């Protein structure tokens, strides 16, 4: 066995040299890169934390502002609702007052219109009554002899069976609106004499004017009341003026 001290010394030097070489070319640069990256990572993390803190602060601020905005919105809405309610109430009261005023005016106008209509209707009725009276009066004879002649003509115009039934019916009476004077009664009976009858006189104020011959079998009318009834009936049947 032999131990080469020179080789031993060489190897010690070699290991030391290799240690220096690897320290300089390998371990130090790589460690520095790792340290630099760790520093950058730490700086990035710190920046990220700062950004996160800033973001959280911004979020908190935004939330606070949102809460304030919500409160302000609520206040504005409440004020608007209150104002709207007041305006609605005012408008409602104004509308109700306006409606009452319009209704009162309408009622007044209606009353005025109704008064005018009533006056107009009264005028029409008066005119109508005047026309009826004129027409009826225009058709009346001038005296009792005229009524007697018209009564006789009406009897003549009846058919023989109708006339015989009327004249032979019992209780034959000659009606006038007022008691006839003896001369007028004589005159009336003279006009009816051709028919062979002498009716008893009777009074009916509703006739107004004229003569009517009544029996239990029928009636022959020749009076102003009858003419008025005829005119009214004609007007009811024909509504044209």
């Amino acid at each position, binding site marked *: *066995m032999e131990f080469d001290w*020179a080789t031993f010394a060489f190897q010690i030097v070699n290991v030391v040299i*290799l240690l220096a*070489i690897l*320290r300089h070319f390998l371990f130090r640069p790589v460690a520095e*890169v*790792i340290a*630099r990256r760790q520093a950058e990572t730490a700086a990035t993390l710190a920046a990220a934390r700062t950004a996160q803190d800033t973001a959280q602060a911004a979020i908190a601020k935004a939330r606070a502002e949102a809460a304030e905005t919500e409160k302000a919105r609520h206040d504005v809405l409440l004020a608007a609702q209150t104002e709207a309610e007041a305006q609605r109430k005012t408008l409602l009261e104004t509308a109700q007052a306006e409606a009452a005023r319009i209704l009162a005016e309408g009622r007044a106008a209606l009353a005025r219109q109704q008064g005018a209509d009533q006056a107009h209707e009264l005028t029409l009725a008066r005119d109508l009554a005047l026309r009826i009276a004129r027409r009826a009066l225009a058709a009346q004879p001038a005296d009792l002899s005229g009524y007697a002649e018209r009564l006789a003509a009406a009897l003549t115009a009846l058919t023989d069976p109708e006339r015989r039934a009327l004249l032979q019916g019992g209780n034959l009476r000659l009606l006038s609106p007022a008691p006839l004077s003896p001369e007028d009664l004589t005159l009336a009976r003279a006009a009816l004499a051709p028919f062979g009858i002498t009716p008893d006189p009777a009074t009916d104020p509703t006739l107004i004017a004229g003569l009517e011959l009544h029996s239990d079998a029928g009636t022959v009318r020749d009076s102003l009341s009858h003419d008025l009834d005829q005119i009214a009936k004609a007007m009811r049947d024909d509504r044209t003026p």
Partner: protein
Amino acid sequence: MIDSPLSTSAAFALGPVTVTWPVVVTWGIIALLGLGAALATRRLSPTPGRAQAVLELIVVALDSEIKATIPGDPGRFRALIGTLLLFILCANWSGLVPGVEPPTAHLETDAALAVVVFAAGIGWGLREQGLRGWLATFARPSWVMIPLNLVEQITRHFSLMVRLFGNVMSGVFVISIVGALAGLLVPIPLMALDMLTGAVQAYIFAALALVFIGSSVSGE
């Protein structure tokens, strides 16, 4: 290797100094590692590529191992432990190159490595604890233990040397004998096993060196 494992063959002579093959192979390993390190760290960037990632992985693993053994900044021991690991690994695996014998298969290289570790332990112990404190560690737990602690300082580094030498030399020796007897392909499994053994021995040497230096630093 069919000669005595305890003998070294001369490569050339520099005047009165004879340079042996283990020294020459070591120079080759130094050149390879130095050149490779220079090339690999030429363009380091914060965004690592594949090669840089491997280098950073090695450094981070070293730092992690050192931190687990010695508290404090791992950068103090990174270069020494890392150099021991890489050199022993390359030296052990250099036997795979035909015609090359691993320098660690020779006692002088292992002794040199053990002496470096021994010196580093003394140096770091003195730096961290001072002369008085470092000397006081030999009297722990009692002054009676001083002779035993002094012997332990020698023997544990001697065992460091012998363990590496025995494992690597035996592997190389076995492969040489089997290769001489059984032909070309038969030693291949043994060579693979030798690679594993070489890696394990490199790790063991570096780990024990770290433990020994750590004990000197902490005084325990």
